[in-house]
């Protein structure tokens, strides 16, 4: 019998396939470019993955709920501006780290008010907010870069505890917290029942509105945390910040086996999807493909996964119906 969709960490076929793809891509790129397997390049891939790991975690929850947020890139931009100003105002780095998730949670709440309270389809509501937030970033930056930011946050996140960088620990803790919430608290079944069919969830007594608002706030907080990581890595904020984040996050999450239709998710899949996406982008860059091609590759990957997957899941449904007879 097919098991419940709540088996997030059980390594299934999807996760093994992704792991295989990561290894295969690594082999191909290390043959193609002598720089790929250097320690420096591995560090680059890890560093480039951190924001997407966090934003992708939030996107996993949204997609599992049958929702989406296409404004997360610019949301990260706004949160990054807040973090940057906190650093410029000489706020302690540990507090500056928290400014990101707090700003993100606030913006997530605003998104929730529009999408959940305003009863606007998530894709349209967040697209509208994308426009509004973009103007916000422009107004706040005034066309200038916020650069030469203090190094305090950078030092904090690269400091190590028992040899593990704090940045890696924070990401690990975020995944663990979300896993516990999904697997060990009512939030998990509630979220997935909404993703499966919102009306049925409501009839069953699931507090649908509350769960939907909470999920936008959690996703906002995780994307805001990504903003703190961004500021720590780059120590500047510019107009184009986060312009490919939503695309990258949706691609990585869907690649990871979370259903775009809702009702199913894999946290391990998301993490592996992020790593695979970043390795592909990095490897292509090393092979001399201009970085402008990255969104093309990501977009093509997203479309191919969906195109290949939907007929398969339909086939699965048909098979299931057949078995019932």
């Amino acid at each position, binding site marked *: *019998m*097919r*098991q*419940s*969709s*709540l088996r997030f960490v059980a390594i299934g076929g999807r996760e093994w396939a992704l792991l295989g793809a990561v290894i295969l891509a690594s082999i191909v790129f290390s043959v193609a470019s002598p720089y790929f397997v250097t320690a420096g390049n591995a560090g680059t891939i890890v560093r480039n993955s951190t924001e997407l790991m966090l934003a992708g975690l939030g996107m996993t929850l949204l997609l599992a709920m049958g929702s989406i947020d296409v404004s997360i890139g610019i949301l990260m931009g706004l949160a990054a501006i807040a973090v940057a100003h906190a650093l410029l105002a000489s706020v302690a780095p540990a507090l500056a780290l928290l400014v990101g998730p707090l700003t993100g949670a606030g913006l997530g709440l605003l998104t929730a008010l529009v999408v959940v309270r305003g009863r606007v389809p998530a894709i349209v509501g967040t697209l509208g907010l994308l426009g509004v937030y973009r103007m916000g970033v422009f107004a706040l930056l005034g066309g200038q870069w916020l650069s030469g930011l203090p190094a305090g946050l950078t030092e904090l996140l690269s400091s190590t505890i028992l040899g593990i960088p704090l940045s890696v620990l924070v990401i690990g803790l975020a995944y663990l917290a979300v896993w516990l919430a999904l697997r*060990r*608290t*009512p939030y998990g*079944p*509630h979220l*997935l*029942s909404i*993703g*499966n*069919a919102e*009306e*049925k*969830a409501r*009839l*069953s*007594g*699931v*507090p649908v509105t509350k769960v939907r608002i909470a999920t936008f706030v959690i996703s906002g907080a995780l994307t805001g945390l990504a903003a703190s990581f961004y500021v720590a890595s780059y120590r500047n904020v510019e107009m184009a910040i986060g312009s490919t984040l939503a695309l990258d996050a949706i691609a990585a999450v869907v690649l990871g086996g979370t259903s775009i239709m809702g*009702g*199913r998710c894999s946290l391990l899949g998301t993490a592996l999807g992020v790593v695979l996406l970043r390795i592909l982008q990095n490897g292509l860059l090393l092979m001399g493909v201009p970085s402008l091609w990255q969104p093309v590759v990501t977009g093509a990957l997203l479309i191919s996964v969906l195109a290949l997957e939907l007929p398969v899941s339909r086939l699965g449904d048909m098979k*299931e119906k057949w078995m*019932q*007879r």
Partner: protein
Amino acid sequence: MTVPFLRATGITKRFGALTALRDVDLDINGGEVLALLGDNGAGKSTFIKILAGAHPQSDGELLVEGQPVEFSSPKDAASSGIATIFQELALSENLSISENVFLGRELKRSVLGIPFLRRKAMRERVDGLLHELDAHISDPEAAVGSLSGGQRQAVAICRALNLNAKLVIMDEPTAALAVAETRKVLELTRRLAGRGCAVVLISHNIADVFEVADRMVVFRRGRKVAERRKEDTTPEEIVSLITGAHPDVRALEQNNR
């Protein structure tokens, strides 16, 4: 005389200019299976939605065990002991049996303010209920999407029992089932009544109704047109009441014109 579990008096439901239900009086007793019959649009679905708390009535009163109640949501109805098994079975196919049975009312234990699920306790409870119903489902962790139609009905009934429901409303429970599965669900229905539950059953299948119901109520054009005990009627009479060919219904409809 004992108080019925639920008494509906003068229930009327208007949707704008349309009156979907007019002045319905009905008593429902514990331990009996009451069938609601009627053509499409006769008002039976509207009536059970009012009982289930999905729509508020426009007029009229509901008494549960003699006390007036007002339902503004299915949750209110559930807290009065009324559980509804909708035709489309409000089950989440992607969740397990035990997650479905407890969905929206999970057993929790608070650790540092975080509501952790008591998964083992929930699994054991569901295992017990499945046994009691003799549902032939061995693994409460199986996804509901992998179950047959009849097994899903059993899960929905478990959900109702787990609510300590005293009135279970079943909307077309056998509509999409094969013969053997229909048998099983009718057995489950009788077993529910045997436990002292009141069961309200909506069905178009007269044979099923005669097999399982103690009492039948016929709706037509938003009114209750007849009420019969099973031993006092025949399938032919019920059909003529539904279609309006019965003299009583004709007389009634003449008067209301």
